[in-house]
């Protein structure tokens, strides 16, 4: 074994040892709080509250939501000011990434609602970006002070049930707006037919994102599995949920939007004319 190789191996070994010691010290405090309480806090946020600009005490998820919007605003401004005016006919890597992101949602809107999709395209692009960035945001583990004097890591905005309900209700409202635009009052009835949709959308998002958070909490709680495993589990759950939930919500919204906004009276007329033809044939 060469000297260089010995040195590298020694450094790696030392880092692992230090990491283990740090982990042992850091995870020691968890034993004071029972797992039941930790899980309950992660789900309900009853005790962990964060001050919202000093106006009211809110769940940390709401702070995450506004933080995501702030990050998105800065990113959008940079792109709009510095990149969009320099777009070229043959796109570079970053331009291609932006075009791909817009193109995916535009195509999704076109495929599921070919007759009316301009507003839908923007909505599912925003929703997809919000869910994806919001879920990834959890990975950074940004700490904020709580009203009780402690600190809390900012979760994904949609791991807060209020955020998930807001998202589900808004998606339902967008679907209903498509119904009204396409079929007037009948569109409202068509949308109300699926009255369980906002509930299912909200709780699907909440459940999916919360499950990731709970599994990560669980893994961190026990010292024996709090080394290396959280990295894999946390990243895997977060990334997969970010992608899957962004896809599922945008897909469902565009699908229902396309269904209720499709103009129905033409089909009815066609059916009627077909029925008349069949009757005439039968009589003949």
């Amino acid at each position, binding site marked *: 074994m060469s000297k260089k190789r010995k040195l590298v191996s020694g450094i790696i070994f030392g880092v692992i040892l230090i990491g283990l010691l740090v982990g042992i010290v850091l995870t020691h405090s968890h034993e004071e709080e029972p797992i039941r309480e930790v899980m309950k806090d992660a*789900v*309900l*946020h*009853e005790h962990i509250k964060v001050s*919202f600009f000093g106006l*009211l005490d*809110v*769940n940390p998820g*709401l702070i995450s*939501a*506004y933080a*995501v*919007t702030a990050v*998105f*605003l800065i990113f*959008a*401004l940079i*792109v*709009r000011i510095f990149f*969009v005016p320099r*777009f070229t*006919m043959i796109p570079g890597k970053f331009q291609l990434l*932006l*075009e791909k992101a*817009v*193109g995916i949602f*535009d195509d999704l809107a076109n495929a599921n609602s070919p007759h009316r999709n301009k507003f839908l*395209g*923007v*909505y599912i*692009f*925003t929703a997809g*970006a*919000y869910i994806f960035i919001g879920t990834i945001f959890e990975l950074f583990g940004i700490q904020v002070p709580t009203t009780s004097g402690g600190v809390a890591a900012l979760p994904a*905005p949609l791991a*807060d*049930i*209020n*955020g998930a*309900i*807001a*998202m589900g*209700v*808004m998606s339902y409202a967008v679907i209903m707006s498509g119904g009204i635009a396409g079929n007037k009052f009948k569109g409202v009835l068509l949308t109300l037919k699926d009255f369980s949709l906002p509930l299912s959308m909200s709780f699907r998002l909440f459940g999916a994102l919360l499950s990731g958070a709970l599994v990560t909490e669980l893994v961190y709680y026990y010292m024996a599995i709090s080394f290396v495993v959280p990295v894999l589990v946390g990243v895997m759950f977060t990334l997969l949920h970010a992608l899957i939930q962004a896809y599922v919500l945008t897909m469902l919204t565009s699908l229902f939007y396309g269904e209720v906004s499709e103009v129905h009276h033409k089909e009815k007329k066609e059916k009627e004319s077909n029925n008349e033809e069949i009757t005439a044939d039968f009589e003949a």
Partner: protein
Amino acid sequence: MPLNINVQQILLHMFNFVLLFGISYFLLYTPIKKFMDDRKKYYEDIDKEAKDNLKSAEDAKVLYENKLSLLDDEIAKKQNEAVTEAMNKRDEIIKHAKEEAADIIESARKTGEFERERNVLAAKQEIEAYVSKAAEEIVQKGDPYESFANAVKKEATND
């Protein structure tokens, strides 16, 4: 409310999302989509222009092919006309040559006839002169037959 559901916080989440929607609409989605649509239109226009050019080229090709086929017909027609004209000219030249030949022959024949008649006339006159001379000599010298015979012999030997 159960599960820590809070209407105020739901509304705050909605407000945040509407804000995000506005940012997305004005700063990201619309400008990028507009650029993509413009580029699509640009390439569609180029494609359309190329197709139009191709179509006009094909039309021109058909037109020129038709013209070429017409030209072939015209060339054949002109060729026929030229051949016919040449034939006519040839016939005319031959006819003219034949007429000229006939004229020359006729003229030669006439000249020959005239020469012959003149020679005959001259011979006749000469004979007449000889005869009259011989008759004169016979009359002057006695035996006319003998004198005539001598005179003829003499003339014949001179010739």
